[in-house]
């Protein structure tokens, strides 16, 4: 892990191919991801963007019949080749899903869940982690009086922010977000976007989104995927003002997708 601190890249993906059975879902992807930047991944449905983000914490392994070749270097360590400890990888690479998925437990227990199992035992330390994580996602003021109420009683937007807090509680380096606002109303979406801009001070964020305005608002880099290929990866301003590939231009100007 020490090599990673010297370079700007937290992830370096080289020639990644992925098959679901016979279906070639990712085709020789080369993709560096820089530290403390927000990288947005856009593309039409079925282009492989969700598949790609799930390879970064190897959640893709839950799908049966998946085969991968190439390299996914995380802080200089290839997570595909070496005997990687999944638990350790996922502690460093947190994930937030499409729909808020809090556990059917109290707000407090949801956030304390990860740290508790990873060995934080003292109540004082747990309290501190819960408070800090909730403050990080700007949920503290809304829930501080009902930390022991069920998490499922929160609104959709609050649930999603709780899930982000839960992911932050294990102190990851990278936060993966798979269409985190697709099930939310515009106001909740705006709150999450503001949150992303704050979180990038401390975390590396990779966000999959089908909303191009969202990509342009929150990200530093944008990647465009099409039919399992990475078509273009550049700074967000370049992608949206002066894309090099005509397919990227076609997609962002709404000609297809």
């Amino acid at each position, binding site marked *: 892990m020490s090599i990673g601190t010297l370079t700007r890249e937290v992830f370096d993906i080289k020639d990644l191919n992925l098959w679901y059975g016979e279906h070639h879902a990712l085709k020789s992807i080369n993709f560096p991801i820089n530290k403390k930047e927000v990288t947005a991944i856009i593309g039409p449905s079925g282009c492989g963007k969700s598949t790609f983000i799930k390879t970064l*914490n190897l*959640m893709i392994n*839950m799908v*049966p019949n998946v085969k991968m070749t190439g390299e996914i270097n995380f802080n200089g360590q290839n997570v595909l080749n070496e005997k990687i400890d*999944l*638990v*350790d*990888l*996922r*502690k460093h690479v*947190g*994930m937030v*899903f499409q*729909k808020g*998925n*809090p*556990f*059917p*437990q*109290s707000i407090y*227990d949801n956030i304390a*869940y*990860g740290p508790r*199992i*990873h060995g934080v035992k003292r109540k004082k330390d747990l309290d501190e982690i819960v408070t800090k994580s909730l403050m990080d996602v700007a949920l503290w003021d809304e829930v501080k009086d009902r930390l*022991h*109420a*069920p*998490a499922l009683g929160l609104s959709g937007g609050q649930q999603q922010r709780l*899930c982000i807090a*839960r*992911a932050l509680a*294990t102190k990851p380096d990278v936060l993966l977000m798979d269409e985190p606002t697709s099930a939310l109303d515009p106001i909740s979406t705006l709150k999450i976007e503001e949150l992303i801009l704050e979180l990038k001070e401390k975390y590396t964020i990779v966000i999959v989104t089908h909303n191009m305005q969202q990509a342009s608002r929150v990200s530093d880099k944008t990647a465009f995927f099409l039919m399992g290929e990475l078509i273009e990866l550049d700074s967000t301003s370049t992608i949206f003002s002066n894309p090099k590939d005509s397919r990227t231009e076609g997609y962002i100007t709404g000609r297809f997708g």
Partner: protein
Amino acid sequence: MNSKTADRIATGVFITIAIIIISILVGLFYYILVNGLKHVSLDFLTSPSSNVRAGGGIRDQLFNSFYILLLTMLIAVPLGIGGGIYMAEYAKPGKVTDIIRSCIEVLASLPSIVIGMFGLLMFVNLTGWGYTILGGALALTVFNLPVIVRVSEDAIRSVPRDLKEASLALGITRWHTIKTVILPSAFPSILTGAILASGRVFGEAAALLFTAGLSTPRLDYANWNPFSDTSPLNIFRPAETLAVHIWSVNTQGLIPDVEEVSNGAAAVLVLSVLIFNLLARWIGSMIHKKITATK
């Protein structure tokens, strides 16, 4: 016939079916309780049964029923949930798993008298124990295990996938995820399955005839040493349960008050199942509320 008429007819048919089911149930309860409760008294519940004289009670049979239930559940529930976890989380889809699943289904459909005969061979003769509570509990475990495995598997499978993903993505191991997220979510359905299985244990006679036996030794309820012959807690003594008692007094009873005893015992049996059900559900919902933090 237009679809509105069809809709009205369908509604009528289903209401009729519901009424039929409810009236059968109410009639059954009414018959059993009206005929039985008049013979139930504190004396009936607290005195031992008699083989020849009138006025015997059901004290030992009642205790035996609950004791066998407890013992069966202690063995069957952990095994059953373990099997369910294996089938839902660990078994790879394929031929072997299909064969295991077919075996479980065949086991679930075995007639209880056949399980009783198997129990006689295995837990009575082969082990040399004779008729014992443990033998009876093991036979009932064979009888109930498939149901509990099946129910647990279904309960675990119906836990939303995104809860499991959320836990694994936090870097939590598979076993910890099962223990802290999946099992608590599946708990209410597993509990329902266990309660249904308990009802079967209470009512089962055929599987116990040849395993726990038709007699109960003289018991001393002050003797709590489980290794003593007269202790009710001894698991190596024969034990006639309530359901078996009802069967035996009706088929081979020599007592003059056969009808009173069997009606009274039937009423007690039905009420026991009812009270046990309600109690188990109540305790279960308390536990569930505590885990899920709902008030």
